């Protein structure tokens, strides 16, 4: 894999920082809301990229962890618990636990089986949420209020965007650091050749399970933020398998295995949907066409193509 020249990388970081700062300073309500959505879906896409890019596993079930994060936040809010410092760790922990259990079963297989099993388990949560009493069933429910963080309210859209962006950057740095630690290298070794990695003493299964649980936790955190942004939760919005597939699309639109590519992909995807849905109700069809075109025509991600132009 080629790496970008240092100057380009510094440039990208500067542009991203400037964009976040400019949005935080001058963005209006609509822009801040849209930017927060990009940060949140970007976070979820990073979660997918952790398993896809570094462990080489195609998970079609990350909506389960996203939805669990959202549902736990919402259910606790209905009971009157809104302190984020207590609620958020519980929600993220639940998502991580679910990822641990699903991963323990799904990781005994690989390839197509893994895809189908993660999808099926996510569907279990979807149908389960449809039938849980008190949470609105298929219609979903409204959250009474946003979480507070250490007693501070998050109702200001500017503050909420800054928080979402901060969490996204923190998770990106954490995941990037982990990818250059022994853990990350071992994970990539297991992805590239699991027989050799096993022979050199790497426990592929436990390593992948750890990565899957971390990824589930990150997706759960994105779900927590999403519930706080929209203040509305329904199975079809946070647990649908279309969400899982869209997260994969986002990762692939950017570039798998780079982490930041997932965020770029999320931004491209959401911007595309925003623009197309301005003109037609049938935006999903055009997204579908775009996805098919991306797979058939541009074999690598948009960023790979761009990067090739920059480094060539």
């Amino acid at each position, binding site marked *: 894999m080629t790496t970008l020249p240092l100057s380009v990388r510094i440039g990208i970081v500067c542009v991203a920082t400037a964009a976040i700062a400019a949005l935080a300073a001058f963005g209006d309500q609509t822009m801040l809301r849209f930017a927060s959505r990009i940060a949140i879906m970007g976070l979820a896409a990073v979660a997918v990229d952790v398993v896809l890019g570094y462990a080489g596993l195609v998970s079609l079930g990350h909506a389960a962890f996203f939805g669990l994060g959202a549902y736990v936040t919402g259910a606790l809010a209905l009971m009157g618990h809104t302190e984020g410092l207590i609620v958020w760790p519980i929600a993220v922990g639940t998502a991580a636990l679910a990822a641990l259990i699903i991963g323990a079963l799904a990781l005994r297989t690989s390839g197509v089986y893994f895809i189908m*099993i993660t999808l099926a388990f996510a569907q279990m949560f979807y149908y389960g949420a449809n039938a849980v009493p008190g949470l609105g069933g298929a219609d979903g429910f409204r959250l009474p209020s946003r979480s507070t963080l250490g007693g501070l309210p998050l109702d200001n859209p500017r503050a909420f965007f800054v928080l979402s962006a901060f969490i996204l950057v923190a998770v990106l740095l954490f995941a990037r650091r982990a990818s250059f630690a022994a853990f990350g290298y071992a994970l990539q070794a297991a992805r590239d050749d699991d027989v050799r990695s096993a022979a050199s003493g790497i426990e592929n299964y436990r390593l992948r399970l750890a990565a899957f649980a971390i990824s589930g936790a990150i997706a759960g955190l994105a779900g927590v933020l999403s519930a706080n942004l929209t203040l509305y939760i329904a199975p079809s919005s946070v647990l649908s398998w279309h969400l899982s597939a869209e997260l994969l699309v986002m990762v692939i639109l950017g570039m798998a295995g780079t982490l930041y590519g997932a965020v770029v992909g999320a931004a491209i995807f959401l911007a595309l949907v925003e623009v197309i849905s301005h003109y037609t109700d049938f935006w999903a069809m055009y997204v579908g066409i775009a996805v098919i075109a991306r797979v058939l025509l541009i074999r690598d991600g948009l960023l790979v193509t761009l990067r090739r132009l920059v480094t060539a």
Partner: protein
Amino acid sequence: MSIAFLAEQSFNALQLGLMLFLMAVGVTLAFGTMRLINLAHGSFFMLAAYFYAWIIAQTESGIVAWVGALGALAILAIAIERLIIRPLYLRDHLEQVLATFGLILVFNDLVMMIWGRDPVYVPLPDILSGHVMLGDIAYPTYRLVITAVAVVIGIAIWYLIACTRTGGLIRASADNRAVVQALGANVDRLGAVVFALVAVLAGIAGIMTAPLIAVTSGMGDSVLIQSLVVVIIGGLGSIAGALVGAILVAFVEVFGRTYLPMALGNTTGFALANMAIYLLMAVTLVWRPFGIFGKPR
């Protein structure tokens, strides 16, 4: 709980199981022959139902609608195979997942653009709208007939796979596609044939189910996922697995919906009934990670 009620539930489960088998056998054959994971399989189920509903509304002839819907579906499937699926055979599963997910988005919106957002209702054929007395139970004739049709088609599939040259090629390429190609068989054409065949099977299931439920955009999604569960339980690539898995899933689904709410109270019962087939899948995976008839790959 009377015996008659039990028997009626069993018939319903058998009928659902055979519908799921028609779907799941397609998933399993597409993977077995071409190493293809096709999420758009549910779209064929939906499209056939829409085609059938539209043609029968125009012509009021069931036979014309059957032939027209399945013919149109087969042509569409061959075109999709040639343009979109064939370039993906040798690519990784992720790209197959993404492209076929794209197809789902396209088809779900396309049927809404053409036929509107409201559910389309398909009338039962007059001769089949009554009931048949089976001992003490009055069982809907239509359900009985589609069960019989599904059994006949199931036997036809078995004959095709086990006793014909095409079936031999399908089984051979499930084991080793490269060797089959090296021996001079046209595996590309075989792929197209299998793809059209599984589309038609999904279409038959869709048309037969259409009068029992409303035809809506997205109706294929839930059927697709149920048939994936069937294949996970039965074992990917195994036709016997698809049959056993389909019957198991259908019985757990039908009896779960009836008895779990009775046994555990409505709230817990309904929630568990919704999740029952997935719990069955989880238990199967603990016992056999690659399904009952599956081989590790």
